[in-house]
């Protein structure tokens, strides 16, 4: 049994625990931790067999979620968009579309590491310290030999799905908040139920006004 195998099983258990925290349960973090512990000896090998080895990025996000610090990555919306953009190009090429295979670069990743160095400097310049720290741990995980391919330390299909979900959830959450606020305003004015429904479906133009700096709607957690 190798360190990579143990990591794969443990990471799968953490993912299972983190997934449980999304359920509407009391004391979700505690339940999630217990679920992760239970999954380690039950569901984790099945998940590991189905999903392969989770990327270290995804494992870190699961740990943040279970420890209650996932709000730290709520500001990583642009990084989620960049991740999806990379994946849209990376996966088709790596899975056989065209002659170029970017996945091969991950086995001898010195050129890739140059790009990651530039990315790290850009994140530092943008003061994206959380994303920079996640990336740093990915590099350390690669350096310890848990991953033979640098791409696998940083990226996996489930992480991409999570990023897509986060990007879609942002506008949805904003729209839901706008609806709730509008309902509250209407209720305070004593509007009828029919009026509420009509005005909710066809909100007045002022509720679709462009966002301004400091607007609470722009600061909602992404994940």
């Amino acid at each position: 049994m190798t360190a990579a195998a143990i990591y794969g099983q443990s990471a799968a258990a953490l993912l299972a625990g983190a997934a449980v925290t999304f359920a509407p349960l009391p004391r979700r973090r505690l339940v999630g931790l217990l679920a992760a512990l239970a999954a380690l000896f039950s569901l984790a090998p099945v998940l590991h067999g189905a999903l392969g080895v989770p990327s270290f990025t995804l494992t870190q996000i699961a740990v943040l979620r279970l420890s209650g610090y996932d709000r730290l990555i709520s500001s990583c919306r642009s990084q989620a968009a960049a991740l999806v953009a990379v994946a849209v190009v990376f996966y088709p090429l790596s899975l056989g579309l065209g002659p170029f295979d970017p996945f091969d670069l991950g086995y001898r990743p010195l050129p890739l590491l140059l790009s990651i160095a530039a990315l790290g400097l850009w994140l530092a310049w943008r003061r994206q310290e959380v994303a920079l720290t996640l990336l740093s741990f990915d590099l350390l995980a690669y350096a310890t030999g848990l991953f033979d391919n640098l791409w696998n330390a940083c990226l996996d299909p489930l992480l991409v799905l999570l990023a897509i979900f986060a990007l879609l959830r942002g506008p949805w959450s904003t729209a839901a908040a706008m609806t709730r606020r509008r309902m509250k305003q209407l209720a305070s004015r004593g509007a009828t139920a029919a009026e509420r429904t009509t005005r909710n479906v066809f909100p007045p133009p002022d509720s679709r006004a462009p966002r301004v700096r400091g607007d609470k709607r722009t600061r909602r957690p992404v994940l």
Partner: protein
Amino acid sequence: MNSPGSPALAFFALALAAAVWRAPAPAAPSFAAAPAASPELPAAFALEKLPAVAPYAHSASLAELADGRLAAVWYAGSREAAGDVAIWFSARDGSGWSAPRTAATRAATAAATRAYVSFLGNPVLYAEKGGLHLWYGSVGFGGWSGSSINHSVSLDGGDSWSPAEKLVASPFLNISTAVRATPVALADGGVGLPVYHELFANRAEWLRLSADGRILGKARMPSERPGLQPAAAALDGRRALALLRDGGSGDGRVMADATVDGGLSWQASASPPIANPNASVALLRLASGRLLLAANPLTGGARYELALFLSEDEGETWTQARVVEDDPERKAEYSYPSLLQTRDGRIHLAYSWRSQTIAHAVFSEAWLKGDAL
């Protein structure tokens, strides 16, 4: 911008330095020198069957052990893709094949890789000074397109095997990579392992492995039609030829790929005029320099005939040398050949015999050339 003393930036620099330190930077690959010429043997041919261990047996692979014994692995169980399929090992000495024993099972593979395994697939056996290597496929979920490769090593001639390690050869859930043909030795102690994928589209690839079994790189093996199960043979230090199973629809033919840079890159080359019924082939460079191909030269999915072809000109032209099996009723299946030339000059062919057991033919190059027995 952050100050130079920013902890996050400093941590990133440290992690980046560690990753650079660990990143392999291997030299350009080259193939190991060909074995010395074998003694000329008189024409000889013999055929036998390996001991049966289960109703279904398939996909044999051969290697020569350090003590000169011939070793074989294959997979067997109640049927293809059944949960009871295991990888079986047997060695042949002067008294015949030893009682087969398992080299890998579904349960042992799942325990070693800490991942659920539904069933096992094609094994490949390879001997070198450091031991005996076994690569084999395992599937967690789905069919063969969900396969991934496991690697195990024996340091005692196949008596015991190290816990399997998973090779991560795909970015997509590490599925859809399988092995079939024997690897080619590289000069740096590593090997080139021909593999193939069946997810989204059939395609062949070449994995470069280090001496300790880690993947150092991979290269696409393009072909005129969708290709599977490449079988490769080195021609010299830089050049190699690979022949592929035709994984496309309709009547197919054996397809060819070539490299001139030690396997860093492969190009499709002219296909030999040999039909292929979407069936595995085996390729071997003999000590004499000739190339030997074992294949089912049929169409329409039939595998009732298994023939041997020789090439005197590094695969430019091929001549059918012998037919090893030919079922007059055209119903039987003789397929998935594996070739090996041992140090004593004998040539060995193992193949699936009617999916019931593994057959082993041993013959000399003189017999191949048509000399009478």
